[in-house]
């Protein structure tokens, strides 16, 4: 009998992703679903999708999903987790959502050490609204609201949210990864696994920042977008474990 070596993960619905060609969300959704399945926590997981491209994540994840207002993912997740402490709660947020309009909620959830997992998708732009400058847009990077490229004097420098969150006393595990190559995708999955395990062990706030391609708004081919992450984006946002007070987890 033939052995099935690739199939739809248990916690992804039978649905076709609406995401643009080459977008990182589809890959990241799959990775999260795989991790939930491998850790066998899908039936006790509640996901909090953001406002932004991933707002429709509830059409894909086959777990309980409760939509948060723009930027408030960490606060909504806090409410769910405190009410049901034995459930697994993750928020899935874009860079505008988490690092601009939701900065306060995120920093304070981290500082309180809320036992939740935050998935922070950094694609350097507001995707859903058409490619405006995000807090994470690189210096010189074009966007519809930074004519001629982001200018530090005019538009400020990109914000290092993950590094800021690492300072917060309640955060225990923060890593920045990318989905730009098979190797980075595997690394992302390892990070996600560790983040969820951190929550399962009740250790506190975990966050994985994922550099993710947005070829349409970057006006690049998917291949060039992946390469741009590795060559350019990682110069500003280096891939690394930013904080690890967790150590090795079984």
């Amino acid at each position, binding site marked *: 009998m033939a052995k099935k070596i690739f199939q739809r993960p248990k916690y992804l619905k039978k649905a076709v992703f609406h995401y643009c060609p080459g977008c990182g969300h589809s890959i990241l959704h799959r990775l999260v679903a795989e991790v939930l399945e491998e850790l066998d926590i899908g*039936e006790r997981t509640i996901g909090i999708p953001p406002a932004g491209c991933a707002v429709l994540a509830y059409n894909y994840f086959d777990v309980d999903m*409760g939509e948060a207002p723009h930027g408030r993912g960490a*606060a909504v997740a*806090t*409410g769910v987790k405190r009410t*049901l402490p034995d459930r*697994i709660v993750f928020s899935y947020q874009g860079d505008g959502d988490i690092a601009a309009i939701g900065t306060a*909620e995120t920093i304070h959830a981290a500082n309180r050490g809320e036992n939740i997992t935050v998935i922070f998708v950094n694609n350097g732009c507001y995707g859903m609204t058409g490619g405006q400058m995000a807090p994470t847009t690189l210096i010189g990077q074009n966007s519809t609201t930074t004519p001629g490229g982001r200018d530090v004097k005019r538009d400020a420098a990109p914000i290092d949210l993950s590094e800021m969150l690492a300072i917060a006393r309640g955060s225990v595990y923060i890593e920045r990864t990318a989905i730009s190559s098979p190797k980075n995708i595997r690394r992302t999955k390892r990070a996600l696994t560790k983040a969820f395990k951190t929550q399962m062990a009740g250790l506190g706030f975990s966050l994985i920042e994922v550099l993710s391609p947005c070829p349409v708004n970057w006006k690049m081919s998917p291949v060039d977008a992946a390469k741009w992450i590795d060559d350019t984006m990682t110069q500003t946002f280096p891939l690394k474990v930013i904080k690890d007070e967790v150590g090795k987890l079984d």
Partner: protein
Amino acid sequence: MSKKVLMRGSQAIGEAAVRAGCRFYAGYPITPQNELTEYMAEAMDGLNDGTFIQAESELAAINMVIGASMAGARAMTSSSSPGISLKQEGISFLAAQELPAVIVNTMRGGPGLGNIAPSQSDYFQATRGGGHGDYRTIVLAPASGQELADLTRTAFEYADKYRSPVLILGDGMMGQMMEPIVFPEPIDVRTFSPKSWILDGAKGRPSRIILSLLLNPPEQEDLNWRLARKYEIITREIPMSESYMTSDANMIVIAYGTAARIAKGAVKRVRELGLKVGLLRPITLWPFPNRPLKELSRHVREFLVFEMNMGQMIDDVKLALEGRGNVHFYGRPGGIISTPDEIAKTINSIYHRQHLEED
């Protein structure tokens, strides 16, 4: 039955909330309602299944309540006028996502930062939605310590029954004043049948979604129709008011909350002078108690609306009267509490100007 206790209004709401099974509270300090936040901190600390969070902002507080409500808890937040403005985003989401929650507004003078004195400046905001979108919020307006306790229980019941945010609209005086209160017996919500829509993990059932984004216009229209039908049912089922000396009255004063207490004192005073004046006190501000007003308008021509603002509820009174009768207004904004004497003089002046018959 519980013993009669003397308690501050804000704390009475807290105690009544705990007895109504509230197990989640998130709030942010703002005067004049800090006693409620402090009470909940202490009360939740004493429960093994209670959560209190002092949030980093009003926005965070209401969003934590959204999360707790999604997870099935009876959840509450509270604030005062400027803080309630900040919470409006979340209240709109609660309405759209059909999530139960209780929100307490201890009103103070406004607009802007205003002051911390008792006021009724937020009637429009409370009854017209406040946040964006096509929705309604149930609004309860207690006028005594006992009613604060009773209506807090009612608020949680309505929130669950109609899956809707419910606003308790008080003011600085209601919050600070102490009155004797007999609390309803505590209930254990764990004995209730579990809510069929909450997010607690899709174990042995299909996964659930609680959302408010409906990109497809027909789907959004469906939600709006569903909400409208729900609001129709609420409008039919819950309007509440108190009538005081209205049966033979030829002039009616309409006031709610603190203003209604003052007005009641004034009505009693002018009755002693032989003026046939009654009081209608709306207890639900939305839905507004249209029916008793409509019925009164069959034999009463003069109506005086008294509010601690420059005229907000008067719009609802006029809508309820559908053009019948003369609607007068007396208002004291800015956190001034009128005296019954002041209202009595106003009643007297209108009464005699309109040549109304005395006893």
